């Protein structure tokens, strides 16, 4: 019998909702810091999916944790690069809004 674990649906729905919130923020916000926020939310949602499916569906929790740790390390690198870029933009333009960074257009 196919029995769905209700908690798995709960957690993967949570991950889905978080991802959608991240997409919403990424599209609608113009403040660069809010863009970083939404990227972090999306990364967390992705990691959550790994852990949820490993916890409820099989014995591969170790692989899920390794994937999550690698994702977190990549997120640290992304945050370092993003924050340094944001500070540089703020130094140049005195504000952190996407629209002002137009001169990179070719």
């Amino acid at each position: 019998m196919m029995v769905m674990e209700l908690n798995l649906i709960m957690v993967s729905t949570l991950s889905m909702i978080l991802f959608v919130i991240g997409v919403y923020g990424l599209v609608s916000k113009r403040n660069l810091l809010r863009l970083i926020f939404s990227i972090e939310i999306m990364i967390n949602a992705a990691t959550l999916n790994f852990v949820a499916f490993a916890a409820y569906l099989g014995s591969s929790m170790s692989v899920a944790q390794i994937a999550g740790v690698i994702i977190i390390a990549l997120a640290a690198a992304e945050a370092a690069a993003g924050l340094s870029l944001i500070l540089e933009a703020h130094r140049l333009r005195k504000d952190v809004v996407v629209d002002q960074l137009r001169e990179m257009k070719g």
Partner: protein
Amino acid sequence: MILLDRKNLKGLLPGSAGCGLPLSQPLLSLIAYLLLAIEGGIVSILIPLLIAPRIRGLFKEDRFECGQTPPPYGRRRLAMQYYPFLLVFLVFDAASFILFMWVYVSRVYPIYSFLIFSTLLFLLLPPVLLVRKLAEDIRQWW
């Protein structure tokens, strides 16, 4: 202590019927301890509000500014010459939490684990050297 016998108490509480959670005793005592600490903080902040005299006044509610008249906005922009150290710290912190996994394999695969993890450790040293070299000339930094 008949009242506190476990058998008499079972089934009294609402959660007894179903709903088995892996909530163990240590977690419960942690939650109790946390609640105690937060309550302690809140109560001890409330004590001076209860017993201390409270005199309102414009001068009293000003910020501390070493005797100057405080401007309305005190969060002036910080000088950021050491910010790259924070970036290196961020990267290094993420790597060192991976480095701690060395502990569990150092007995099983001594040489291979030594190679892998010390490579990870030494790969991160060059950016530190760069930041230190830049820090010698901090006036050029933002």
